[in-house]
């Protein structure tokens, strides 16, 4: 076994680097979760097990409010982004070659390449101008900004899925008397579902997570969970934040697990 072939295991220090990397990735999270169950108010001294910080988080009206806003915003923005990303993916893979195709890819993926802070400041100026002109200060700005920001994250898995689909499938449907609309709804769309679900979930998580975009775009009273937590951290840090973060983590894990299960069973 050890004699044949190339194995990274035999590179000196490989195991050590791996262990260090995983420690850096997960130890802080483990500590965060650990102290969310602390009976005392400290992040460093263990005073025994308690669920009091979870209780505090659930009873905090502001936490409930911003959590619901965050979830609503993520669901709305991810839905819009998924529809737009599906259309974009179809246009760029099923529309035949057209001039400027590579440019279009780059433009769709702008949020992946332009630093988030630049997008944030640009949005701040842009949105401010519209606010002055129209007087509208509702959630529309956040929905629009999050949608635009989520599109590339939704686009990538949908396009990847489309590219693995044999174009002969659509040709076969047309050959078997399906109109273009029938071929889309009976062949392309059902086969695209795993990509669409993956795109939606990625978009949802990204929207739930983003601080910078929200911070620059939101009007008064439009805090999401991340911007609320950031605000709280400027004051005193109690394990209540740990409890909220832990719940947040649990939600992400559920989504990622669901995503994994869906792509595994439907991905064939």
């Amino acid at each position, binding site marked *: 076994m050890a004699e044949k072939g190339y194995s990274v295991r035999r590179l000196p220090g490989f195991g050590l680097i791996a262990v260090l990397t995983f420690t850096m990735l997960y130890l802080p999270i483990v500590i965060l979760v650990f102290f969310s169950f602390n009976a005392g108010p400290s992040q460093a001294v263990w005073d025994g097990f308690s669920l009091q910080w979870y209780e505090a988080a659930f009873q905090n009206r502001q936490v409930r409010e911003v959590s619901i806003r965050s979830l609503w915003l993520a669901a709305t923005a991810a839905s819009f982004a998924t529809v737009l990303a599906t259309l974009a993916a179809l246009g760029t893979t099923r529309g035949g070659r057209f001039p400027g195709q590579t440019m279009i890819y780059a433009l769709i993926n702008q949020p992946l390449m332009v630093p988030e802070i630049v997008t944030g400041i640009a949005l701040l100026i842009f949105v401010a101008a519209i606010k002055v002109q129209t007087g509208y200060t509702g959630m529309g700005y956040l929905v629009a900004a999050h949608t635009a920001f989520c599109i590339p994250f939704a686009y990538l898995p949908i396009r990847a899925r489309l590219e693995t689909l044999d174009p002969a499938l659509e040709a076969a*449907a047309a050959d*078997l*008397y399906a109109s273009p609309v029938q071929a889309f709804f009976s062949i392309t769309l059902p086969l695209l579902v795993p990509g669409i679900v993956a795109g939606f979930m990625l978009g949802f998580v990204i929207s739930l997570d983003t601080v910078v975009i929200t911070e620059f775009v939101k009007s008064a009273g439009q805090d999401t969970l991340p911007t609320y937590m950031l605000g709280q951290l400027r004051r005193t840090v109690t394990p209540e934040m740990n409890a909220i973060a832990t719940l947040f983590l649990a939600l992400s894990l559920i989504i990622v697990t669901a995503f994994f299960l869906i792509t595994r069973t439907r991905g064939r």
Partner: protein
Amino acid sequence: MDARVQDTTVKGEIDITGVNKVFGQGAAAFHALTDIDLSIATGEFFTLLGPSGCGKTTLLRVIAGFEQPSSGSLRINGAEVAGLGPNRRPVNTVFQSYALFPHMTVAQNIGFGLKMLGKPRREIEATAAEMLRLVRMEALAERRPAELSGGQQQRVALARALAPRPRVLLLDEPLSALDLKLRKEMQSELKRLQTETGITFVFVTHDQEEALTMSDRVAVMSAGRILQMGRPTEIYNAPVNRFVADFIGETNFLVLPVAQTEGDAAHLTLPGGKRAQALLPDGMLPVTGADVTAVIRPEQATIVEPDAGDMTATVDSAVFFGTDTHLHLTLSDGQPFVLRRQNRPGQQPPEPGTALGLSLAPGALRVLED
């Protein structure tokens, strides 16, 4: 489906006249098909044969409706279909990749065409069951394509394309993904299906043996043109030019001087000085003394005693093929010659260096247009 223009001068199931297909424009234009004229009779097993890039698949896609011809006319059962999409033509295709719908069962795949035609469910189910019987796949109706072997997927693809009872079935190299044994099996299976259903088959392949064994007629294509069209025996025995002679089967090309011409035949001077009669292509009148290229198949020469035959040769090597042996020879003037001899029990191949006499079958030698 749409019989818009009924022509009373219908010749066949498919009539293609003056079809051209050009991809791209200007300097980058690529002529995939040039002046294709073709008529395929009802119930015929017609094969488009040629190397990859010869235009055979493009022609199939033009018939199916996936590509529209740049010019020319395409009639199916007398109705002009140029300009119509694939969903409006009474033809179905068996794809090289099979293109089975992975999210549907075998039965749903087979019923798809009838469903799109708006047939009642009872009829769809009955036809699907009948098609499954036809391709001997009754037991696997509820399987998904991913759970089938390559040969089984091939049968489902056939059943799916046959289910709407098309006037014409188009097959795009359907056997190329199968291993040799399965391919032989499917060749006879295809022939059986064609005979049983009476549907016109248009079959695309680059495998000349497949074309010769299965087809009623073959069109040999190269560089977007049809070079020769005819029954397999005609194509094999009387290739019109060097390309066809070379592509179909094995051939010896001999450059020989013309001794004299006489009607549609010429007497050529063989290496060693003896003469042999060779058929001339239509309208060719070579000058006496000029060199022409003549072809003869490896099985059309037999070994005789040295000096007793038309030519003499020495053996370079012998390759054993089971049913026969290929002898690689050098003629007395240095030209190579391959001879195929059927093996008999106890017969040993001649040693390299042995001198042999070759006798040519009458009518086997043909002059090619160059």
